[in-house]
């Protein structure tokens, strides 16, 4: 099975495909679902230039969904932009 997790959601991917491509095919477009406007995460430029599609795995550093190949069993979570990060929310806050 080629599956990774976006929060609790299972996302299927084709080996060789980026995280961004697999998420879009699954209908995931908003990469900061809990954030208030105006600071959305999203796939936009597809070449790592806009930095809007940053995601993270566990407590590791953020990386671009559009540059990174999906791999089996990845557990990905949103990276909240600073403007939208709640004052205290433990591990999900990117400060």
């Amino acid at each position, binding site marked *: 099975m080629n599956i990774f997790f976006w929060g609790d959601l299972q996302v299927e991917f*084709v*080996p*060789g*495909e*980026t995280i*961004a*491509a697999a998420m*879009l*095919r699954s*209908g995931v*477009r*908003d*990469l900061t679902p809990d954030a208030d*406007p*105006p*600071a*959305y*995460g*999203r*796939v*936009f*430029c*597809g*070449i*790592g*230039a*806009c*930095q*809007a599609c*940053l995601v993270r795995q566990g407590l*590791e*550093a*953020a*990386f*671009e969904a*559009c*540059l*990174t*190949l999906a791999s089996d069993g990845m557990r990905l979570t949103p990276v909240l*932009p*600073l*403007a*939208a990060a709640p004052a205290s929310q433990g591990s999900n806050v990117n400060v």
Partner: protein
Amino acid sequence: MSKEMTVVVIGGGAAGVSAAISIARTNVRVLLVEQRDRLGGAIHRQPASKTTPPVTRAKGHVQAWAGLMKELSSCKERITVATSTVFSGIDGNGFVLLDNRRSGELVAIRPEGMILALGATEVVHPFPGWELPGVFSAGGVQVLLKETGRPLKGTTLLAGSGPLLLALGAQLCAAGGPPLAILERGEPFKRPTASVKLLSSLPRLFEGAGYMLRLASANVPYRSGAQIISAKSDKRGFLVEVLQRGQHSTYQVDNLVVHDGLRAGHLAVDLSSLPFPTVEAGDGREILGAHCAMADGRLAAAKLLSRLGLATASAAADEQTVRAARRFQSQLGVLFYKPPPPIQSETIVCRCEGRRASSLPKGVTAREAKLVGRFGMGACQGRFCADATARALGEGAVSCEFRPAVMRWPIRPLAAASIARLRFVSANFNEIWNDDTTFA
């Protein structure tokens, strides 16, 4: 006998690969760095897997890339290809920092010279709603299409300006997902003089005519003189308000794809401040298009080699290619020219920091807007907001305020754990990067 020289080439698109080959042929060792898992860049992006449906590509591009890969194979003794490796910047001691995302190490190298072939940056003039998920850049959608072979799910509207909208529209038609319409801000058909001049570039003009034919046979309307006023998200997607020659209309779509042209220059740094000769190549240097990228890569290599005191072959043919491409681009520029629309006050100018035009401080410079207002302070380093911020401030073209003399690294996200595993390397690159598939 002097030490063998090393040149680092950043960017594995047509210009970077071509420059790497030219340099390797003079017996200089080359480290060719590419952020993705495979070479190709945006233009020659390869399908994700063998089962990916093929996407329509210009035949000339496919042949040119195959030829370049063959040349690369013949130089594999001197070129190490570092894929999944992100250029992170140059530190104060002149070390090029490379984030090897595969091994989780930051690799530091002190080369004798460097080529930057970072590709073009897309220009997107912001409007209220451009920051929403489901709004994509045309280049981004084209890259996704090449990789996945499939258009975006649902209905798509293309809007903005320039030939890329036509190319992408035609490719989406061929992939079975024609756009609802193409909205072109400019009025190319109202400029007959420019069209006549374009005839001197016949082959590429036929490429454009081919796009138009494909769009016409799929009944995709091409509306010129039409610009987006705003996009609002609704339950199904977007309501896009459009103004065309005084008439307002609304489109309901799932995806909104925007593009207002291409711009050279990716990097917020003054190259002359770097501690070794550095030369830009390809669309990152000057927008000359895919047809010219390989020639421009060879020219950049020749320029760097001469600065390193090495002899190079005659570049007359490549210089001619560049001149022709420059003429073609300038004519295209005239054909599609339309001044950018005014920035509405509720528009988010800086997406990374979520800053609206209405909160732009009055009477400040772009630098002050950055330091005080956080415009252009975010993760994209101003690539998508510097122009609009300067324009909203009435400064016209982007000032050098966004190009400081000293490089601030990392220029991309970098794990502290990778910095902790910093590794200095002077040779034996193949011990770190040994991806056999590159030369397969």
